């Protein structure tokens, strides 16, 4: 757990202009952490997303239920992921997401893009984007839309594995 990760040069945040090409065959695969903050046990959506991203060729790590912001950020850094997906249906997103974003910044991992889905009122979205979430996916979003979004927005970070 206490393994130290060298964060060489902090990379630029994900943007549509500066990004590595989608990994071709034989290239390292995109690593994604699907995390469940909050106390709710609704894991249907998270599990469907995990399977869909896996089937789209990504490497998916699932945290399991009820992870604290600290646990999620630690897992993201230790697993050296390219993307964090948060799934929450408890209504605690306005408290837990800012905490996760702060901890990521504090750990020098602000370059890992964070997306989220679940029960999140539309009016909360601007505030969540302001604190750095890259995208919020509402109920009814297809897994293909999410995969498409990832392909367009998430660069494969340069790293040695």
């Amino acid at each position, binding site marked *: 757990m206490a393994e130290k990760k060298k964060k060489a040069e902090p990379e630029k945040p994900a943007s549509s202009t500066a990004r590595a090409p989608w990994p071709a065959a034989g290239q390292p695969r995109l690593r994604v952490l699907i995390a469940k903050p*909050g106390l*709710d046990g609704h894991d249907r959506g998270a599990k*469907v997303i995990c399977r869909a991203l896996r089937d789209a060729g990504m490497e*998916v790590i699932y945290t399991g*239920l009820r992870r604290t912001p600290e646990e999620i950020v630690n897992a993201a850094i230790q697993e050296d992921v390219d993307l964090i997906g948060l799934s929450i249906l*408890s*209504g*605690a997103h306005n408290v837990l997401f800012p905490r996760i974003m702060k901890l990521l910044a504090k750990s020098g991992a602000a370059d890992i893009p964070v997306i989220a889905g679940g029960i999140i009122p539309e*009016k909360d979205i601007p505030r969540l984007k302001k604190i750095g979430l890259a995208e919020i996916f509402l109920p009814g979003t297809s*897994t293909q839309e999410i995969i498409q979004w990832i392909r367009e927005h998430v660069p494969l970070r340069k790293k040695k594995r």
Partner: protein
Amino acid sequence: MSLRTKERQAKTAGDEAGLRRGWRRWERAYREEIKQTGTQPVEATSTSGRPIKPLYTPLDLKNFDFFRDLGFPGEYPFTRGIHPTMYRGRLWTMRQFSGFGTAEDTNRRFKYLLAQGQTGLSVAFHLPTLMGIDSDHPMAKGEIGKCGVAVDSLADMEILFDGIPLDKITTSMTINPPAAVLWAMYIAVAEKQGVSPRVISGTIQNDILKEYIAQKTFVFPPRPSMKLVVDTFEFGAKEVPRWNTISISGYHIREAGATAVQELAFTLRDGIEYVEWALERGLHIDDFAPRLSFFFNAHNDFFEEIAKFRAARKIWAEVMRERFGAKKERSWWLRFHTQTSGVSLMAQQPYNNVVRVAIQALAAVLGGTQSLHTNSLDETYALPSEHAVTIALRTQQIIAYESGVTNTIDPLGGSYYVEKLTQELEQEAKSYIKKIDELGGMVRAIELGFPQKEIADSAYRYQQAVERKEKIIVGVNAFEMEHEPIPILVVDPAVARHQLRRLREVKRTRNKLRVKSTLADLKRAARDEVNLMPFILDCVRAYATVGEIMDALKEVYGVYEEPCTY
């Protein structure tokens, strides 16, 4: 008898040749017309992926026997309903699941709903209470009063039911690992109102097996959890005879992605597991079986859902009479609450949800439910607003008083299609039940991850079908358009402050020595494996908190960690 049987057989055989001719004639016309219109013959399936034929006839019911499969309402196997009168005698209980903010907020909502003609209460607790932790626990941050009402101690419970006479109203409480604790609090509030535990009536969900399978609010490992559940059966049978000590729930199993058959099979197999554990304790079947109740989902596929409810009653009656040898008729009854499907509601064009709920609620009523919750149109965004919950309640009242469906019992009984579906669901559920028997029972099956994996597979299959547009969801993968945001309920951030203040106040003013000694007694009792209910009642009366009581038990029982698989 033999003559009548012969006549019946002759008549059926005679009919069969004619029916087959008719079927072939119709099928030719059907194919011809489909060809002419140029449409592709659609492979129709139900929401659960069951193939559905375009037409059903008596040919589908060749081994159907009126008395064996259907019978009369109030008679074994109860396919048509558990009461001879059904809704002619009494309508279902209209019971909206509600809770948010502080006990004061929810007490006001309860009184509003009762004033609007609701006939029973149903408490939604916030997540910290559901998980058995207090509002001042670090994990409760951001969660206080969000998903339900915050209850930490008896002090909150007293406010929650203030001015509501517990001898006149029945209350359902959705609570699982800490079910015994919240039930004890309810009993203690009744005592303070001068109402005997022998008089109060209601339900605790208390169904821990479906937590490991689907809803995932678990605390202790399965085996000590089952012990605690059986404690409540035993205590209830002796001391709180009108209380339903469990609501064996398919609702969450279905919401997690199960098919109709999986919902039916896993729920009933959970029921069998509870009965086996109670018998193991030495309880007598007819002492506790009449207090077992059930809770199902009403999903989108209208006829499949109706068939599911009918099949559930039939299978359970048979299980209780044949497998367990129950003698009392009440032990054979499958009494159930229904909630319309939360996952079927859509964030897109949310007013359409009113229509979805109405159709699902109608299926529950045609399936003979004893009690019903209709979801509110805004639940993909937040807890229901007062406006939205009123429409949901009115939906039930329109079905009850305007539609005419309550005038006759089991109006779809005898429909070739519904009877065939009922038979299919019954047979498929029974083979799942057999499979779980072979695995060594439900606790073992859960430890092996069997139901969890079956459900995750179904959920993924369904999602893929939606994305291929094999399943159409109006407003989501067809008929899309922009919609205006709708007003939603926002839980005041002050709720957390109020709740934390009250918790501090309770901890400051209670008799600390009494709290300490009742908690120590509880721990000792847990180690001695005696019935914990009297000890939990003592803790609760001393104003020990939910978190303190659950922590004491965690020391003895440990906690459950789920493997992180998908």
